[in-house]
């Protein structure tokens, strides 16, 4: 019954969406305003309509309706309630439905804005968004139906939505349960954030296409979608950071990022999106790089779909490919179509998109922004090539190869360092004109200040040149960013006689985009600290110790105190070691590395015990143990220096985006209106 309601509404949503496209096309061609309005209303209906199948599926999930195949695949009776809810995106068809639902939320929201001056964009924005939505709904309705059920026929159990001839419903006694890797609180929020980031990049893309079609190729589309883009970037960044945290907490290999193809597929749209975010500033300020910005947003959109395709089609097998199915060719066709249509449109407007301004100096800030784009794109091309090469190799030579972390680290490391350096220099450089001499004058103070890192590094015993260079770079960029804040605040103190705190506050408040951006930069600096620490200075050891025995790593030592094994009410068998941690002989903490065995999924999971400080994490994994303990248990210990800064940096990063993207409140608007008056009074 509920499954019927869910599937029925899904079908209706698809039909309404198709109608919306048709109405928008017709309204646009015949210039009939009422048809465009009708299309707009159709799009406004997307979110409320799709909410019905989502609620239906949630209801089925929490009420153990195991006749529905999806419910049976991703839940089991023993799972706690919240995991039954998150199982909505724990499998193939559910996650696609969830994807569509989030896109529908943006579709509906965009119809509610005031379209007054941008009326001509409206039909095209509707068409782009609805075409994308129709594609995903189509996949859900015809290929990956989340409401499909089990039926007992004379030949066996089949899976279908409608009852086959002479079949009776088949209801399994219990479900198979969610993939244990997904049974983690981090999974409540990581996928939704990632998906939100994915779908919200469709909004600026839709406006870009609308601008191309209508020929309004000025920076209007960019200004209109500036906030949307920032929010998209916020969600995607948060999704990536949470994913890294989840990997660190759950996967038990001592790291946070394994250059897994599916991680990369979420990272690629972030790279092009970040390049886009930077280069649109040039278009707004200088009316340059118009074509380039369109290329970037088109690329970002198709990488979003490509990312979903990679994750969902099973083309790449990796730890993330929980569900695989035959929807690959569909996605492939969709990507090829959208990419060629978008690029075709871009070419047709190529002449109109000529820059009014030109680059005057290699030393100007615009030139550095171009360099920034080159580096981001360089990383993007490297990662794309890295995940495609094994497939190409398999096709061409028949030989399967692995392209693993060493490749990516070596190829992208220098590019990341280059980006970091740019982050340090660009904010100090003037727009339009500059010279080496002016550079020197702008940079020397932070540069001198950053020299303080050298003695600090020497004292800390860091002498390898890569390490010294990386840490110095971090110190330099930090000095520049703080200097920028300081200069801005000092200017206000001088001009307005404000005290330090009000000066800082009003500085950030009055130019949130710029200073939000600098806060993001500080976040990146902190994250870089964590990355350098773990990538260059991680150490590890493994050993088997008897109860009471110890294992040492650097100045740390762990003592194996006890091991307990017990069943939990949510269907796990937990084997938990009690481990004491000492540092230079001094008692520091007690940690509990453990192994969870999931009965329903027949799969173990390794959860590390971690003693975390700002200086570094002692990360202990229970590798193995003997039942009758004479030999004891095997532990693997990692020391991950500075890794906490990765998470701290992540939060600062997000805070910075929030500062830049938060909607203006009434007070701001009043001030903005009154500011010309103020100027006159002065």
């Amino acid at each position, binding site marked *: 019954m509920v499954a019927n309601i869910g599937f029925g509404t899904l079908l209706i949503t698809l039909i309404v969406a198709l109608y919306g496209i048709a109405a928008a096309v017709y309204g646009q061609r015949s210039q009939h305003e009422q048809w465009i309005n009708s299309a707009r209303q159709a799009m406004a209906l997307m979110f409320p309509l799709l909410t019905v199948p989502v609620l239906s599926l949630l209801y089925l999930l929490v009420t153990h309706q195991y006749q529905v195949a999806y419910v049976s695949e991703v839940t089991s009776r023993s799972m706690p309630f919240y995991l039954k809810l998150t199982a909505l995106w724990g499998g193939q068809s559910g996650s696609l439905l969830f994807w569509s639902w989030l896109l529908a939320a943006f579709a509906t929201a965009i119809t509610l804005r005031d379209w007054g001056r941008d009326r001509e964009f409206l039909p095209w924005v509707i068409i782009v968004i609805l075409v994308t939505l129709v594609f995903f709904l189509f996949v859900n309705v015809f290929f990956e139906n989340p409401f499909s059920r089990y039926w007992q026929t004379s030949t066996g159990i089949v899976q279908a939505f409608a009852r086959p001839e002479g079949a009776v419903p088949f209801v399994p006694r219990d479900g198979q349960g969610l993939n244990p890797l997904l049974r983690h609180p981090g999974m409540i929020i990581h996928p939704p954030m990632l998906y939100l980031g994915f779908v919200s990049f469709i909004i600026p893309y839709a406006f870009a296409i609308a601008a191309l079609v209508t020929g309004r190729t000025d920076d209007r589309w960019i200004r209109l979608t500036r906030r949307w883009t920032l929010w998209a970037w916020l969600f995607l960044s948060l999704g990536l950071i949470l994913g890294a945290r989840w990997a660190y907490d759950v996967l038990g290999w001592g790291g946070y990022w394994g250059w897994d193809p599916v991680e990369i597929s979420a990272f690629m749209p972030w790279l092009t999106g970040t390049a886009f975010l930077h280069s649109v500033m040039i278009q707004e300020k200088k009316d340059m790089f118009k074509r380039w910005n369109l290329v970037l947003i088109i690329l970002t959109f198709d990488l979003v779909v490509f990312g979903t395709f990679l994750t969902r089609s099973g083309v790449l097998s*990796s730890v993330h490919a929980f569900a695989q199915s035959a929807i690959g060719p569909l996605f492939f066709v969709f990507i090829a179509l959208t990419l060629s249509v978008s690029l075709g449109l871009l070419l047709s407007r190529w002449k109109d998109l000529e820059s009014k301004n030109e680059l005057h100096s290699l030393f100007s800030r615009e030139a550095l922004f171009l360099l920034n784009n080159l580096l981001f794109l360089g990383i993007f091309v490297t990662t794309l090539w890295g995940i495609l090469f094994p497939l190409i190799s398999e096709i061409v030579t028949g030989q399967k*190869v*692995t392209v693993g972390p060493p*490749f990516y680290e070596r190829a992208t490391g220098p590019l990341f360092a280059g980006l970091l350096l740019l982050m340090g220099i660009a904010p100090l450089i003037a727009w339009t004109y500059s010279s080496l001499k002016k550079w020197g004058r702008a940079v020397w103070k932070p540069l001198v200040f950053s020299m303080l890192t050298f003695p600090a590094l020497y004292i800390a015993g860091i002498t390898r040149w890569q390490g010294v260079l990386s840490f110095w770079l971090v110190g330099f960029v930090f000095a520049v960013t703080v200097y920028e804040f300081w200069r801005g605040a000092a200017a206000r103190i001088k001009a307005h006689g404000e005290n330090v705190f009000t000066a800082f506050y009003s*500085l950030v408040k009055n*130019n949130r985009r710029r200073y939000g951006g600098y806060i993001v930069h500080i976040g990146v600096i902190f994250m870089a600290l964590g990355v350098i620490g773990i990538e260059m200075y991680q150490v590890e050891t*493994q050993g088997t110790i008897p109860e009471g025995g110890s294992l040492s790593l650097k100045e740390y030592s762990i003592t194996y105190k006890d091991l307990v094994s017990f069943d939990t009410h949510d269907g796990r068998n937990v084997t938990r070691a009690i481990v004491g941690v000492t540092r230079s002989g001094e008692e520091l903490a007690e940690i509990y590395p453990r192994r969870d065995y999931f009965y329903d999924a027949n799969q173990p999971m390794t959860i590390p015990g971690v003693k975390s400080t700002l200086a570094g994490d002692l990360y202990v994994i229970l590798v193995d143990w003997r039942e009758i303990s004479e030999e004891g248990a095997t532990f693997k210990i990692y020391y991950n220096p500075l890794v906490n800064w990765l998470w701290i940096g992540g939060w600062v990063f997000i805070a910075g985006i929030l500062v830049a993207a938060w909607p203006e409140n009434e007070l701001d608007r009043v001030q903005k209106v009154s500011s010309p008056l103020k100027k006159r009074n002065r």
Partner: protein
Amino acid sequence: MKNHIHLGVRVFLVLLVLVILYPSPGFAQEPTPPDDEVNAIAKQLYCPVCENTPLDACRTSACEQWRGLIREKLQQGWTEEEIKGYFVEEYGDRVLAEPPKRGFNWLVYLVPPLAFLAGAYALYRGFTKWRISRSPSRPDSRKVPEDEVGIEKEYISRVEKELENR
């Protein structure tokens, strides 16, 4: 004749003792190599089943066996390269973290830097083109303050302007 056999047996026994006392690397039973040595090699290998998980971190029983095999080979005195070579021979190039640098595989290493250089070159070309087309009327005479105080003033007015024009 009898003496002869006796001598033969004695020689054999002496040889046997020698073999036991002077173990050659091929037959020796050295102490079990520590986990860290095993992991150092396992880190660089990927089993064909658990894709994208390095062997040292993988918890499946298949990977457990592979690690056991590495330990055995180490015990027999094999070098790191020999062990890696053994796995490549048995399971193909995919067990390595990176494709070996030969033939078609060179592409994986060459394409990213070449693409980057091509991008940099295109940028440079575009840039010089801009400059040439622009140079006759280059308004370089724009007044730019050169002294410290001037720069400071310019900066303050820039901040102020940005805050107001926002």
